[in-house]
């Protein structure tokens, strides 16, 4: 019953993805969300980590395929799987979930049928430093029974939460200190394999 699922994202997974979008303000970016169904409550999907993927040519397959193989392998050994996909559009006023995102989302659903998609909400991100809003700066999209991606309805606010309530305050701090410069994505790794897409030092 996909309609009843709740998605809870950890602060680090959330912040990592948003910082990634800020590092590449002029292009579309995407990322993968890792996690599992909550063992004590199977109507909640816990998103415990994220991997920023690409900031160029998101619609080309080779790098995506390699990234998914490696990500699955790494997190699989920790009992975690791919549970969602994150996308940020190139333009500020583009709030549509595009065809590329939908196709990748469909592919992710083969790994995890209840996978959800998250689209960066640019207006919310812009308003972030000014408000006390604790809700994530992303929109939740779920696949309905006919496999179409739909924006989670008005109750979407309660279906997608950040585990740590102060996450947006922490994010605002990081934005002021330009922490996005430290984020490494899979594109960076492929250009220079010394760069680690796991970002182990990011939140230390």
């Amino acid at each position, binding site marked *: 019953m996909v309609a009843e699922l709740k998605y809870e994202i950890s602060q680090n997974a959330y912040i990592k993805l948003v910082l990634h979008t800020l590092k590449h303000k002029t292009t579309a970016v995407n990322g993968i969300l890792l996690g599992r169904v909550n063992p004590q409550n199977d109507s909640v999907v816990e998103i415990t980590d994220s991997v920023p993927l690409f900031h160029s040519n998101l619609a*080309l*397959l080779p*790098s995506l395929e390699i990234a998914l193989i*490696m990500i699955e392998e790494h997190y699989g050994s920790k009992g975690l799987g791919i549970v969602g996909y994150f996308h940020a559009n190139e333009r500020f006023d583009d709030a549509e979930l595009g065809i590329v995102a939908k196709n990748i989302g469909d592919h992710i659903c083969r790994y995890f049928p209840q996978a959800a998609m998250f689209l960066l909400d640019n207006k919310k991100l812009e308003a972030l430093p000014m408000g006390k809003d604790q809700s994530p700066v992303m929109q939740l999209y779920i696949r309905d029974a006919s496999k179409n991606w739909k924006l989670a309805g008005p109750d979407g606010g309660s279906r997608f939460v950040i585990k740590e309530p102060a996450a947006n305050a922490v994010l605002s701090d990081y934005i002021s200190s330009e922490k996005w410069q430290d984020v490494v994505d899979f594109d960076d790794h*492929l250009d220079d394999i010394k760069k680690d897409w796991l970002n182990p030092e990011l939140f230390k």
Partner: protein
Amino acid sequence: MVSKTEETQLNRLENQVDNGGGGAWEYLCLVRKLKVRRSEKVLKYGLSILNDPKKRSALGPEEWTLYEQVAIAAMDCQCLNVAKDCIKALLKKFPESKRVGRLDGMLLEAKGSWAEAEKAYSSLLEDNPLDQVIHKRKVAMAKAQGNISGAIESLNKYLEIFMADHDAWRELAEIYVSLQMYKQAAFCYEELILSQPTVPLYHLAYADVLYTLGGLENLQTSKKYYASTIDLTGGKNTRALLGVCLCTSAIGQVSKGKNKEDKESPELQSLAAKALEKEYRQKADDKLGLLTSALRSLKI
């Protein structure tokens, strides 16, 4: 388009300036030469020179080039007042200048006044119909307003006249890819490879597009272009090495059960795999395990 050595040089200079080691003017010149987009830094360091009368006069006639560079960087960072001031200074010095007129047009763009910018550019084009920069600003405006099909149309028209503009071909290819119009993107990369056959980036991009298109013939060609990329980059390009492995695996899957007349020699793939393992062992040791199991899963 910037090579790895050029990028390293630029980053080194940038770090030096960031850490108070001087060299701001050198950095700004290099950014200009390489045509990279580092607007926040350009704005910061450019302004620090322009706002210091001693430093400014030390530039001599280059002062005006800096005004232009800072104006554009300011617009990119949405610091429109700074941009306006720079343009005012330039107008004072060069009152009839078309080049400054272009900046005026860009300022209108930055404000989102699309119709006015369109008018400004059209009038500039009347006097100089072959101004490439303005033609491309019109494409950029279409893209910024979300009119992607308009951008494609304008860019195609532009390329009919200025077919040697490699950046424009690349931009068109990337727009096509973003719309999943891979065949059209492939055509653009073919044009680029024809005119600049020794630039590995085009071979790599072409191979990526062909792989995405799929089908036996495309996969076989894709493998050839990953191989030529490896050749042109002295075997150091991770994406190309991985590409060879991906192609071999995909070709194997597609031709399963079919009568393989030309047997794929496994040498290329095993050489690529060995090169990758060596690279990872040296530079990304902790990821070596992931690489080997990825390669194993590809050898289906």
